[in-house]
């Protein structure tokens, strides 16, 4: 978080992204704020299988997230995408339509929550009317704020819905790549680079 006086970082930022345990296990990130409970337990179970020799090395993406959980975007699994596709966007919260113009970052965020629901298939984010604020992404929260504005990438693609699908997907993956990057102040160095200045307040 920009301005954070503690400069706290995640485990991979601290130990290094290519850190491996003595048993050869990498750091596994199961992101989400909070993490979807079944995503977490399922990852633990996978690692138990792996340790027992019943599964190969856990498949992770470049951000060390399990690929089967974080391989698709929120939009890919969102049951409101039908309204997106029809160019039929919500203009106020509480509408059952696609809320991308109200701040939802779904099209560029890697997360399975709308598809899986939050608990026993109940709840979630854009599928139940909550804008996706990107909490599974390395760039969270700074790159997604202010949350309630339409994301710049989404603005482009939601007005470009007339363009051929291939083009849209290319556009998406660019934006997706951007928010999958770490903010510059996440590192294990001693100096504090979040923009916090103790004398500024």
């Amino acid at each position, binding site marked *: 978080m920009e301005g954070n006086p503690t400069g706290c970082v995640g485990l991979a930022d601290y130990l290094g992204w290519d850190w491996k345990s003595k048993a050869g296990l990498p750091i596994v990130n199961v992101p989400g704020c909070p993490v979807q409970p079944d995503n977490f337990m399922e990852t633990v179970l996978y690692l138990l299988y792996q340790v027992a020799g019943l599964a190969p090395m856990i498949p992770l993406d470049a951000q060390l997230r399990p690929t089967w959980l974080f391989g698709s975007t929120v939009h890919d699994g969102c049951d409101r995408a039908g309204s997106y596709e029809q160019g039929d966007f919500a203009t106020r*919260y*509480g509408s059952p339509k696609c809320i991308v113009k109200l701040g939802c970052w779904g099209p560029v965020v890697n997360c399975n929550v709308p598809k899986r629901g939050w608990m026993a298939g*109940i*709840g979630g984010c854009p599928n139940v009317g909550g804008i996706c604020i990107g909490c599974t992404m390395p760039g969270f*929260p700074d790159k997604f704020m202010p*949350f309630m504005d339409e994301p710049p990438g989404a603005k482009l693609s939601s007005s470009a819905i007339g363009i051929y699908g291939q083009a849209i997907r290319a556009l998406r993956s660019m934006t997706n790549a951007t928010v999958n990057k770490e903010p510059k102040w996440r590192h294990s160095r001693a100096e504090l680079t979040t923009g916090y200045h103790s004398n500024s*307040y």
Partner: protein
Amino acid sequence: MATITASRAEEDAQKSQLVEMNWDPITRIVGSLGIFTKIDFGKRKVAECHSTSSIFRGYSIFMKGKDPRDAHFITSRICGICGDNHATCATYAQNMAFGVRPPAMAEWIVNLGEAAEYMFDHNIFQDNLVGVDFCEKMVKETNPGVWEKAEKTRAPHEELHGYRTIGDIMKALNPFTGAFYIEALQVSRMTREMFCLMEGRHVHPSTLYPGGVGTVPTVQLFTDYIVRLMKYVEFMKKVVPLHDDLFDFFYEALPGYEEVGRRRILLGCWGSFNNPDVCDYTYAKMTDWGRGMYVTPGVIVDGKLVTTDLVDINLNIRILLGSSYYDDWQNAQTFVQKDPLGNPVDQRHPWNQSTFPKPQKRDFKEKYTWVMSPRWYDKRTGDYLALDTGGGPIARFWATALAGIVDIGYIKATGHSVKIYLPKTTSKPEVEFEWHIPKWSNAIERDRARTYFQAYAAAAALYFAEQALAELHAGRTRTWNDFKVPEEAIGCGFHEAVRGVLSHHVVIRDHKIANYHPYPPTPWNANPRDCYGTPGPYEDAVQNTPIFEENGPDKFKGIDIMRAVRSFDPCLPCGVHMYLGNGKVLETHHSPMFGAVPQAG
């Protein structure tokens, strides 16, 4: 000024009898609460207690400069247990600052979500954490005589909860194997589903916004909620008499047990569940719509209701230092000179607080914690009262009962009690429970109130669901009203987090957050001695606690101290470390794993 608890000098008992015992951390959640005590095994009482926190977050610092609309999203992340209470409270403050009044439907949805949160969290804390302190295995190890008596004592309400003896209840509370422990755990899934129906996600809601909610109100939404709620209502008809039997037995089996965790009656409740008929979020009318809340706000001093006025409550909040790792802000910037009614705002009020962290070594004679000391200024006496929340429910009940305002069919405040009416369910007839104002503010009564408040929340939810359905059937399905972020504004939100008072204070300048201070219950309860020497509620309550545990220093579990601290619901207590004064670890155990193999560490 002046300390408000009976001051207590450190007594110098025989050196051989005075043993220092520390529990650190006492919670698993951010905050890392540690309780440091000296116990006098000669007099069987606690001689001294300090409450500390070893972690600093910096929320009030990095909130500055952010978009005010982001406040509820960010502050939700303060807590992994009651994030939704923060988000809700933040939207209340945003609504005031932005001048927006959400549609009634949105308020019912938020009320249903927060009611589900109370049902969920009180249930899992009471039956899967507090319950373990009263279970067969724990009682056998700490008070074998009490266990023998429990086995022989018939449970007065057997016909309602199905357990023949108090011993049977204690067995059912055994972690991981007890029937009631397991049932409560399963119920907690269901209440969390209810929460997710209304607020999208637990524990950081996805569908809350300033101006209303994003939840789509449909017959399906409320039906899915109500079918689960009715199961919980049925569950409550068993739980309330079960806990009554258990808690009454402790008074009977251990005469004097009312002293455990007892302190002066100094309770704060900031109110919960806004009433959309009257709540317009203006500061000007806050007195009125605050009294319209379905849990009445109030300050109770020595059993008297001092105020139910949110304006009064707001203006008299003071953040003191004294034993905390911060530099003072007395001479720093004043953000708010007067409130919108023209009342002066103190420099020590959250609106004017500045946070200057100053890390240093822990020293119990000087500074020893990251927690500041929130106090409530009693203008009648000039005291800075160290109000506690009693873990939430006892303060909510006490204020609501004395105010005598709430009357919604399922709930009636009588002026001296609160009646809760639960309708017929699948296999149980209708039931009326009545919470009576207790004689003491102590561990047992805090715990008892928690159980009753689970029933209160369920009864309130029945009312909210009916109101929501009426809105739906009338076709008023709008859930959000638009707003503009003003260039300059102030706002405050008052709510009850699960474990007690919660306030958010925001100052907006140039469309950005200029100052933001959330005050959740734990700073109120876990704070240190302030600049006047007044100890915080934990310190106070533990210092007053006599030791009933039959074990000596060698096998000491500190169960009475644990019951005293846990009655305040210090987030979710989980890890308990116990040290002898000379640095040697006596024992370590994690209470939810009690019964499993203890781990050294």
